């Protein structure tokens, strides 16, 4: 089945089986492998992407369901320079193996874009849908809180 959508600002048309998840379509079909797949049933958050600005789990969406939508993956969130969230993650040692990181950054980006003044409680609440087996979460929460200021000024 043919599906057309916008991926990181570019129009894409691709042929998928209806059962293909958006995560598999992006990784295998479109070769954007920054979106990670951990559990494939909605528990770990590693596959988080943005659909029309909302953070969602790409393993729980069919590729055919994003017909006409705007999809942004981790690749779409940074250019040649490190983004404010990437800088903050590096500064706070908010990753070790890095498997979970794309999911945390896409989620945090959506959160800070919509709620630049979030407090720690809200950050913890939102990040509770993502699993990280390395860091113990505290540095991740610190990194997100640290990056807030860049979103408040509108520099993303």
């Amino acid at each position: 089945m043919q599906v057309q959508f916008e991926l990181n600002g570019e129009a894409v048309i691709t042929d998928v089986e209806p059962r293909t998840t958006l995560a598999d379509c992006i990784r295998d079909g479109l070769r954007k492998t920054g979106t990670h797949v951990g559990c494939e049933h909605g528990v770990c958050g590693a596959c988080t992407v943005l659909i029309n600005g909302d953070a969602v789990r790409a393993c729980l969406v069919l590729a055919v369901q994003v017909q006409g939508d705007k999809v942004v993956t981790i690749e779409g969130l940074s250019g040649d320079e490190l983004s404010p969230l990437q800088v903050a993650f590096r500064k706070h040692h908010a990753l070790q193996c890095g498997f979970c990181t794309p999911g945390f950054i896409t989620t945090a980006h959506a959160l800070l874009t919509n709620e630049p003044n979030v407090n720690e409680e809200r950050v913890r609440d939102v990040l509770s849908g993502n699993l990280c087996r390395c860091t113990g979460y505290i540095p991740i929460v610190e990194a997100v809180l640290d990056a807030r200021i860049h979103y408040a000024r509108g520099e993303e």
Partner: protein
Amino acid sequence: MKPPIFEYASPSTIAEAVSLLASRDGNAKVISGGQSLMPMLAFRLASPELLVDLKQLKDLNTIIIRDDGVRLGAKVRWCDIESDKRLDRSHPLLAEAIKHVAHYQVRNRGTVGGSLAHADPSAEMPGVTLTCDGLMTIVGSRGMRIEKASDFFIGPLTTSLEPDEIITEVHLPSWPADRRWAFREFARRKGDFAMAGVALFYDLDQENRAVDAHIGVIGVSDCPIRLTAAEAALNGNALTEETFSAVVAAAKGSIDPPSDIHASGAYRRALLGTLLGRGLHQSASRGETNASPI
């Protein structure tokens, strides 16, 4: 795992969606947010021939608040309820309960209609709908019907929906401003399914005795249930320690929770008693600002 093979259709009218569902002898399924169905497909617990996506159906994502209560379109998402501040006054029990549903990313897609149709025994929306005498509007090949929540939930993941039927709306009757209420649940991690939970409300008569008590529970049975014995122990009584103890005892005596990997039946019963006791105490102090001075 990867989902099994199926076909996919994305109709733009309800009539078209219903006829697609009816065309497959029970082997077609609705997909809305996909937040329950996609895991079911990944585990191959469901293997429909055809998925009928509600994505393009219009008018199913509004929250209407009128004198006769709150109407939620089937495609209203958890995040829509969370961000509609009118609900804090128009239906505080709903607003509070929905805060407990799932995590951020799931809340951006999961819908009211999907949750009701999926009918997880621990899910909040079915519990609130049953407790509040909610009514579902359902459309199928044989036309439209209005179903009471008490007739809708039949068993674990089982409802009275026919294979060609779609829920379009749920109506929760109006909520008096000084109603006493509480919602309490316990899960190991915030956003996970509850091991047990309770939704309750009642009004007060002239003598400050509880009337019209509604107590519904989740996670302790095959599907959400009302605890009529506990409601009877509350109705007509003053909000005292004795009353609350009697209500908790009646509740614990009237459930027989299942054991599973998350918790034993005995633990769930004890947990429900604790949650109900706390909920009753919390409810007693709620709405006081609006109540007439004694």
